[in-house]
């Protein structure tokens, strides 16, 4: 665990390690700026929180990617991501027609144009959609299964704890059960997706 977060590298490291203090620093420093921008676009506190949270998820996922080497300030990246996310939300929620989005004041031709935040956001939104389907599937899956999967994949509990919690005879049984549940979840998930 890092003791201090006096620069972007430490912050990014802390974030990738799941250190809550790192996200706290990022929130404290950047949320006021980003929310202000969202308010200026007509958003409310709730949507500002949502956009910031989604932006931070994008940054968190990038921070865990060993290939990721941020070449600008965290704030610059985060703001660009939030801006794009906001426009996507704005388009979806408030207007049904295509809103002409002006990105002219942004880094226009990013070299190669591929590894920029636009792609990261598109990737995120795709997963966001799957996430909603997944939540619905989890609901339909029913209790013991959903709990086992949630404990293992989302809360990252160990199989040992899970076996004890759900009173499986041993870890092996718990594992077999977990994979069976995963198989059922998969079926429901793709039935919903059709």
């Amino acid at each position, binding site marked *: 665990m890092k003791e201090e977060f006096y620069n972007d590298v430490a912050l990014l490291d802390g974030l990738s390690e799941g250190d809550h203090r790192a996200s*706290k620093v990022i929130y404290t420093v950047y949320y006021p700026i980003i929310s202000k921008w969202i308010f200026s676009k007509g958003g409310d506190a709730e949507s500002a929180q949502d956009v910031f949270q989604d932006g931070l998820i994008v940054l968190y996922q990038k921070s865990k990617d060993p*290939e990721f080497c941020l070449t600008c300030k965290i704030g610059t990246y985060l703001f660009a991501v939030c801006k794009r996310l906001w426009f996507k939300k704005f388009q979806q929620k408030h207007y049904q027609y295509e809103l002409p989005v002006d990105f002219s*004041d942004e880094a226009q031709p990013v070299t190669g144009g591929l*590894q920029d935040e636009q792609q990261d956001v598109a990737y995120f939104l795709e997963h966001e959609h799957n*996430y909603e389907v997944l939540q619905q599937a989890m609901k339909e899956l029913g209790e013991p299964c959903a709990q086992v999967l949630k404990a293992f*994949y989302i809360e*990252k509990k160990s199989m040992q704890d899970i076996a004890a919690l759900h009173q499986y005879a041993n870890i092996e049984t718990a594992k077999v059960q977990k994979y069976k549940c995963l198989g059922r979840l998969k079926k429901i998930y793709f039935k919903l997706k059709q």
Partner: protein
Amino acid sequence: MLNKYNIEEWAERYYNRQLTREERAEIDAILEADAVLRKEWNEAMEVLSALAHASDAEHIRQALQSARQPQRASGRLVAFIRHNWKTSAIAASFALAAISTVQYMNSSKEMGNSKSKFTQLSREVENIKNSQNSLIKTIEDKTLTPRSPEPPQYDLGGTGFALTNDGYIATNYHVVTGTSDISVITQDNHTYNAVMVGYDAVLDLAILKITDKDFKFGKSPVPYNLKYQDNQVLGLKVFSIGYPQDNLVYNEGYISCERGYQGDSLSYQLEIVANPGQSGSPVIDKQGNVLGLINGKKSNTSGTTYAVRSKALLDLIGRLPDHIRITPPRSNAIARLERTEQVSQLKNYIVTIKTVK
């Protein structure tokens, strides 16, 4: 091995990269042959990726929830926020203002670009002199007359810096490789002979010793220290002084990646102007700590430069035979000085290195 009953288990291990290369190849082959299994497999992968995303989202949701709570964190963190939120906010707003010019790129992608190459920065002294002469001529009469070739006195040159006051010098291996005739020219224009006492060709580092027994760089010990710094240097402002020409030249820049050329972990990537002859120039932070020495640049860019870390240099010093006593400079006498004063104290300890091949 993989079949439709254990597909979830294999998919999970595949997703978490827990398989050996052979197992992966085997699975790829099975999936290639079996379209039904492949569909199931892809579905399992998508569910796993959705679960991973859910986990990330949940983690951040909780982190933000605790961040929104009234300040309950450790004193240090509160102190950080209390002391730095203003500057951070200002810095952030500058960063936001600069958004129109900032470009993101993926380092590995950039590095993988086969067109970019690594150029070592030793200079061909005579070539530079000649081209400078020709430049002057062009300005004078607009005609480029063929130059009369003078017999070169020195072939190649680089920069070095003092490790100890009694004449141990660090430079790049490529500056002094392939020759036994090494001359060191100090700031006051004296030329001394030097020998190489240690090197590492892979790290591109060499340690020289001025052969004159009574030689001293100055009256006081070396004023900077070698800093063994592993991380938290990204974006750090640095400066460098070296001899791309016959006079000392100062440059400023920053560390742009913690890895060097093609991900080399014993190097840094810098954005700093560097010209031939600056190989071996120290890379110094604002407190006067030497973080590394410049050894090359990317050939298709103007400012992207690479530097070997001080860590590698300290390792090399540690590996030298016992009779060579180098105590790496530890004290730092220039930490609190203005930059101009720092440079004027440093310059006595920076030398030109010239070799005949």
